[in-house]
């Protein structure tokens, strides 16, 4: 599904990613762990197309050169980034935003757009699954949401948009244990043979709930070690120091 070869990324002339290699096959869950400043968020930004980076290397996604695609084209083709810090958008109603987003993606895929009634039915169902109070969805997008509500809203968007490749950027940060469970259940419900996940996290905690197939350690812009889910436990006990 996704092949990353020798990916380098610079911002303000500072090299953050220094030759990263990674392959994700359909249905796989990969976790990337690493200390602060190792390039985790840069990786998720570059994969979802954020401007401002000078990027080199090859990234192939579903047999296309991902780096040539615009931000929204990546979304249309099934890439979803759950933000570490979801933006507050004043004046934009959450439900309207969700519907605009879903229909933009459906339109790009050549599928029939949902009308208001079909959409509300879908949202109700998905919100209930995530134990997310629907009333929040009539409020302005993320404005005044608690940290947990913002993260749940990201997972709600993910479950409505039903992406092929979901990138979760420190989705566990700022979540209490109950919210963490709900969010993890939401992610697990989306796991399938066709959909893949890239989970970026500091801590092993999230991986207790979402069991990864592979764990990679990112230090100083490169993956320095890869292994199975047991690698996360090893990191938890020994720290990143032992690998750098």
């Amino acid at each position, binding site marked *: 599904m996704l092949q990353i070869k020798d990916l380098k990324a610079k911002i303000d002339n500072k090299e953050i990613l220094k030759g990263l290699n990674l392959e994700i096959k359909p249905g796989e869950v990969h976790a990337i762990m690493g200390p602060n400043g190792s390039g985790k968020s840069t990786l998720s930004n570059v994969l*979802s*197309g*954020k*401007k401002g980076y000078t990027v080199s290397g090859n990234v192939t996604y579903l047999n296309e050169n991902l780096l040539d695609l*615009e*931000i*929204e084209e*990546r*979304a*249309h083709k099934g890439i*979803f*980034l759950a*933000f570490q810090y*979801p*933006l507050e*958008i*004043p*004046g*934009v*109603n959450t439900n*309207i*935003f969700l519907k*605009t*987003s*879903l229909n*933009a*993606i459906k339109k*790009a895929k050549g599928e029939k757009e949902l009308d208001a009634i079909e959409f509300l039915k879908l949202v109700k169902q998905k919100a209930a699954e995530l134990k997310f109070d629907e009333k929040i969805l009539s409020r*302005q997008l993320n404005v005044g949401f608690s940290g947990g509500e913002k993260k749940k809203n990201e997972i709600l*968007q993910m479950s409505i*948009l039903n992406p092929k490749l979901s990138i979760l950027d420190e989705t566990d940060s700022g979540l209490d244990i109950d919210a963490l469970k709900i969010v993890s259940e939401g992610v697990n419900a989306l796991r399938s043979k066709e959909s893949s996940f890239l989970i970026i996290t500091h801590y092993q905690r999230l991986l207790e709930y979402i069991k990864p197939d592979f764990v990679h350690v990112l230090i100083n812009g490169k993956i320095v070690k890869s292994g199975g889910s047991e690698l996360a436990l090893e990191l938890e006990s020994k720290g990143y120091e032992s690998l750098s």
Partner: protein
Amino acid sequence: MDQLKIDFDKVIEGLKLSDENISFRKKNFNQFVENGFPNKRVEDWKFSDLNQIISSNIENLHFHSNFAPSKIDEAIFIDKFAHNKIVYLNGTISNVDFNHEDDTKVLVTRDLSKNENFKEVNPLVSLNNALTASYIRVTVKENYSSNKPLIIYNITTKDLKSTALNLKTDIVLEKNSSLKVINLFDDNSENNFINIVQNFDIAQDSTLKNYKIDHKINSNIKYCYNNINLEKNSISENFILSTGSKFIKNEINCNLNDEYSSAFINGILNLTKSQHHEIKTNINHLAENTKSYQLIKSVLNDSAKGIYQGKIYVDSKAQKTNGYQLSKALLLNENTEFDGKPELEIYADDVKCSHGATSGNLDEDAIFYLMSRGLSHQQSKELLINGFLLDAVEKITDEEIKILIKKMIGITE
């Protein structure tokens, strides 16, 4: 100026006026002739040099026109929205219709001699006093709430060119009465100067809601002067949608004359190309326990220019005043300009007054967030701009009119 004198004489000849009225008009005429159109050396006009704007946009400005009023295109009237009407067609009152009201409770007069009640506060008001041929006064009687809004249509047709129009409206709300007014511009003409003076006298316990909509793109130059007098426990709510004309300056002078009166002025400047719009307010707190709130939101594109000059004056008698103003501007292009000039002049010591202003570009991170959800750059921008404007629109307290205005500016829900 020679043309002006000839036109003035024609206006006087054409109207059947009393000697008093003629001398009132002559006095005002001379006042305008002495000063001319305001230029940037006049403090209140330093961001908008009207003299220069008129001379560079209008050739051979005429001050008198004898158009036979053409037939009104009924399609202009707002559909499926019951309302009363006053229609100005090319500056002439062509239709007055208060069918929704009790005609003993809403009175209309077009007696030109009432024009003399207007003070000569500035050269443009003097020009209006001297030349206006279309004056209307609407009086809402004591204890009467009008059933439906009044829409004042300001329609110009495409045969109107290089002409100065001087319109005057006078609205009187007697005690414990209410009225909603929509001033709606529908300009199909080019390069005219439209000078509108409106007065509102709002008696004790009365409420006026006044919504001004200049939304249709046109090349006319406009000045609108509103004077508002508020008595005890009365309310004036104003909303300005300023997006259509080449140039428009909306000036509001509001006198909070007695206790517990309050004034709300909210507005949107949404400009493109070389549009140049200004909102100028003078809020005069002249009694205890009076309130004023102002929120102006501006979105500027291309090489547009937006200005907000907001003054709050608090008299020494006006203790326990609440005066608040906020201006936020989005500048979408480096060639745009926004000038904000807040002024607080306070002579009382127990008051709460504040002002604030911000300006900046759209948040790139917010655009990235929306695009990462599949929205195009254009869609993301529109969503953010509408979101930015929404809180000014949400200040409109009349739900029906709020929906109407949201539709006009393309905010969907």
